[in-house]
Each structure stands twice: as structure tokens, then as C-alpha cells.
């Protein structure tokens, strides 16, 4: 125990630390609040602060815009398919890397994280060059291809963390009791990893839904919602509508994050991990 009673309690945060942590959190959240405020502003042309008045009419205007609906639809479709591909590939990779020691294991791990460790512009530029060389026209599928590639690692990270905690004796027990590989997978491994996979899938979905840099390189004429927003940022047409879309995007990303959090929070309680 502490010998010097005057020394501050090491289990209590000091004031500067509290201030520092508080400042960091505030810095991360305050700007998002402004977006929400601006969605209701009556000011049309500038970013004047404070807003001269508040109105709900921009939500109605945004709702009527066909270009926004199209962009949203494309984004949702791309994200859905990219997520499914990433779920399959990421889970397989996690299964291999969590249980096996094999030659070339390290390079494989590196290959998995490379698409997000290297800047997005490299991935985008590489894919664009390759599509050009292979004479693949830009389409819905070229966007999906790019998105799935960097989403794999998100699923992998979630799945591998859970698989490492999964008690191997559970699997052995299943085998000893006569379960075959498929039965063991469907009755033991899957139920125990389902929430981690679901969380990984949601994060992959959010990542794809929001991706812009790779998309600018792999999309032809189509615009996903982020591309639509980027165009509005560079050449604003109707600022308040952009604000409304931004708020919708905040909500659309907030919900999966919250869900993913609750799904992985109970992750310590993997069956068989008690011992």
C-alpha cells in the first residue's frame, strides 16, 4: 500500500487528465452537433452562425429529391453485397488464422490488413488501373469489388477475436460426442460466434456505406450517397438539403454502431470461456 498519505490516490484521475480527456471527447462530438443544428436553419446560401431561424421544410424538400433517393439506393445495395462477400471471406480467413499455424501465416495476415493499412488512394488507383488493363467497364460490380476488398478485414478482426476466445475443448467435446465437422460448425461454432459476425457485418456495412475515396476511382457515372455529398461539398446547389442528408447519414451510421456495440459487449461470455 501507499506509504505516503499526502500523495494523491493513484486510482483517482488527476484534474489535468480529466480536463484533457474531456477536451478530447468534446472535440470529437461538438462538430456533429452543429450539423444537426444547421439542418433546421432558414438560411439558404451561407453558413451563417447562429442560424437566423429554424424550420423543418428542408426535410420535406430532401424527401422529394430523386437524385438523393437514387444515390441512397445504390449505396445500400453496394453495401449489402459487399458486406455479404466480406462476411464469407473474412470469416473463412479468421477460421484459418485463429486455429492453424502454417507456413506463410504472417504474410497472409499482412495481406488481410494491407487494403486498409495502405491509403485508400492506392487501393482506388490500383483497382482503376487494373480495370483499365483488363478492359472491365465501370459498373455497380466494380464498386462492390473495391468495397468488399477493404471490408474483409473488419469482419476478420471481429471473427478472429471471438474465435480465439472460443474454448477449443467445446469443439473437441462435440467431436467426441460424434458430431461431424458440419454439425460442430452449425451447432457449436456458429452460435458462439454469431454476434461477433453480426457486429463485423454491420461495421463492414457502415464502412462501405461511407466510403468515398476508393469509390471515386471505381465508379463510372453512378453516384453513391457519399459521392453525391462530395459533389455538393465541392459545388453546393442547395446547402440546407445537404445538411438534411448529413443528419440522415449520422442516424444511419449511429444505429448499426450501437447495435454492434451491444452485440459484442457480452462477448466475454463465450460459452466455455469460463474455465
Amino acid at each position, binding site marked *: 500500500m501507499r506509504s505516503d498519505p499526502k500523495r494523491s490516490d493513484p486510482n483517482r484521475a488527476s484534474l489535468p487528465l480529466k480536463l484533457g*480527456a474531456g477536451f478530447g471527447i468534446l472535440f470529437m462530438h461538438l462538430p456533429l452537433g452543429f450539423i444537426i443544428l444547421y439542418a433546421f436553419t432558414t438560411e439558404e446560401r451561407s453558413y451563417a452562425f447562429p442560424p437566423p431561424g429554424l424550420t423543418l421544410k428542408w426535410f420535406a424538400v430532401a424527401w422529394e429529391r430523386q437524385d438523393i433517393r437514387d444515390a441512397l439506393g445504390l449505396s445500400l445495395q453496394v453495401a449489402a453485397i459487399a458486406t455479404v462477400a466480406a462476411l464469407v471471406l473474412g470469416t473463412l480467413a479468421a477460421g484459418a488464422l485463429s486455429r492453424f499455424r502454417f507456413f506463410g501465416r504472417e504474410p497472409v495476415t499482412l495481406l488481410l490488413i494491407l487494403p486498409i493499412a495502405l491509403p485508400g488512394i492506392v487501393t482506388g488507383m490500383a483497382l482503376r488501373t*487494373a480495370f483499365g488493363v483488363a478492359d472491365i467497364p465501370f459498373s455497380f460490380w466494380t464498386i462492390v469489388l473495391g468495397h468488399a476488398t477493404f471490408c474483409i478485414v473488419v469482419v476478420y478482426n471481429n471473427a478472429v477475436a471471438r474465435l480465439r476466445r472460443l474454448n477449443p475443448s467445446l469443439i473437441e467435446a462435440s467431436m467426441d*460426442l460424434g458430431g461431424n*465437422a458440419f*454439425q460442430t460448425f452449425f451447432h457449436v461454432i456458429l452460435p458462439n460466434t454469431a454476434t461477433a459476425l453480426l457486429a463485423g457485418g454491420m461495421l463492414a456495412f457502415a464502412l462501405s456505406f461511407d466510403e468515398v475515396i476508393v469509390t471515386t476511382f471505381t465508379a463510372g457515372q453512378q453516384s453513391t450517397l457519399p459521392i453525391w*455529398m462530395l459533389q455538393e461539398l465541392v459545388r453546393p446547389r442547395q446547402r440546407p438539403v445537404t445538411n438534411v442528408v*448529413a443528419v440522415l447519414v449520422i442516424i444511419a*451510421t449511429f444505429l448499426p454502431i450501437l447495435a454492434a456495440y451491444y452485440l459484442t459487449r457480452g462477448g466475454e461470455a463465450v460459452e466455455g470461456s469460463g474455465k
Partner: protein
Amino acid sequence: MTAAAIDRRALPPPPGRHGIARRLSDIILRRRGLLLACLLIPPLLWLGIIYLGALFTLLAHSLFSIDEFAGTIIYQPTLKTFGELLRPANLDIVLRTVGLATVVTLLAAVIGFPVAWYAARYARGRAKALFYLAVMMPLWSSYLVKLYAWKLLLAKEGAIGWVAARLGLGGVIDAWLSLPLVGGPSLSVSYTGMVLVFLYLWLPFMILPIQAALERVPASMLEASSDLGARPGQTFRTVVLPLAMPGVVAGAIFTFSLTLGDYIVPQVIGTSALVLGQAVYMQQGVAGNLPLAAAFAVVPIVVMVIFLTVAKRVGAFDAV
């Protein structure tokens, strides 16, 4: 879950000894290599063909050059295009971008550390969950929305200017903007604005790995340091900081790489001086000089490979 409950789930009706599933299962289980191959081959094929294939195509293009008159690519290996990177204008772009990424990374580490330290060591129960969400939320909220929020804040008539004017600090901002390098015509057209936005965008990527590293520092170690007479500052420097380093480096990989490759932020906020990402985008799009764009794109690859190699040495990957 009780043992009995597990039994019921793991034990479907007694399987037929010669079912197809059983036979397939036997084959897979008898040869572990086969199971491994089944698991590993699909993701390896995808990443190997699509991703590595694309990456090598890119690298190959950086070794080609362009016919200046016809504007067509000459498919002959040459280092000429890489030589062009050394032209003063292009070298400027590279150095500016690397400098920018370094500043952003250092600032992110300084601002992120207290948050991570507080979350890892002092926050308990509900507060800890809240802290986690408070970091996760901005991490996963939309990149463009966050950028857009800063456009609102930094605009001349925007909130920062308004608050500064109310506090009588308008002069301070003007003075800062009149400085060379960091200044500019307004906050939204300056390096200051750009660094602020990058910091804001990547901060969670720094906090989470540091927090992960710090959570593995046992409290008893800090108590031991304190018992042995170290002042809090000494404990921090000699115990906490070295143990947190892998986390800091892991966070730095993200912040550095993300800044290095971004061309959207400088396009929306920032000065007219180009960064690397913009150069890549312009060379491949407007200028149609694919080899030069590829050569520019090789720069972050090289920088990141060096970074990752160093990071591996200090064990940063264990903290991710």
C-alpha cells in the same frame, strides 16, 4: 450455459455413419491441411487476384512512361517517371504531404493519449461504456459528414468566427492567419484548418489502439513504481509510456496512412497547394498521365512499408 444444454445442441440425432456429410467431414478432419485449404483459399484468391493483382498493375504502370506529344503510354520499363517525381514541383508535393501527415499524427497522439489513458485506467462500469461509445461513434460516423461539419465551423461567417468575435478573440485568429505557412486568407483556406480537420477525422483511430495497449498495463505495476518512490511523472515516463508505445505506433499507422492518402479534405478545405492524393487524382484524370499517377501512388506504399516494418519491430500489431 449448462453442460446439459450444450449436449443437446451439439448432439443432434445419431448421425448415419455413412452419410455424405459424415464422409465429407471425415475427409476434412483427417487431413487438417485440406480443412485449412478450404478456409484459406477463397479469401486468398480474392485478395491475391483482385487486390494484389491490382497493386502489381499499378506498380507496373509506374515503370512505364508517357509519350509527351501523343499522350499515350509507352509500355517499356523505365525509371524516367520516377525521375519526374524528383522535379521540384513534384518533390514539393511529396514532402508537403509527408510533413502534413507527420504533424497530424503527432498532434493526434498528444490529444488522444489523455482520453485513452482515462478510459483505460480510471473509467469504470457505465462511464467506461460511455467512453467507448464516445470514441466509437465519431470513428464510424460518416467521413463526409464530419468534413462537412468542419466546413460549417471554419467558414468565415461560421461558428468559430462567431464565438471568437463574441469573446473578443477575432484578433487572435487574424494574427494566427497572418503567420506564414500555418496561415492563409481564412481558416477554411489554410493549413491550420486542414490539420484541424484531419485531426478530427482520425483521432478515434489513435485513441482505440492506445487504449487497448494501456488496458494491458497492470495497476500493480504502477503501484510498484509509486512504492519505489517514483513521482507520477516519472512513472508515466518510465513505465506507462514505454508500455503504451505499441498502441501509439498502431494508431500512428492509421493516422499517418489516412492523411497520406486523402485528397478529399485538401480539396474541400485547405490551400491551393496540392497534396499527394490530389496529384494522383489529377494526373490520372485530368492530365491522363497514368504512369506519373502510379509513380505518385507508389510513394505512400513505400512510406507505409517502411512504417509497417518498423511498427512490427515494436510489436504494434499485437495491440490492434
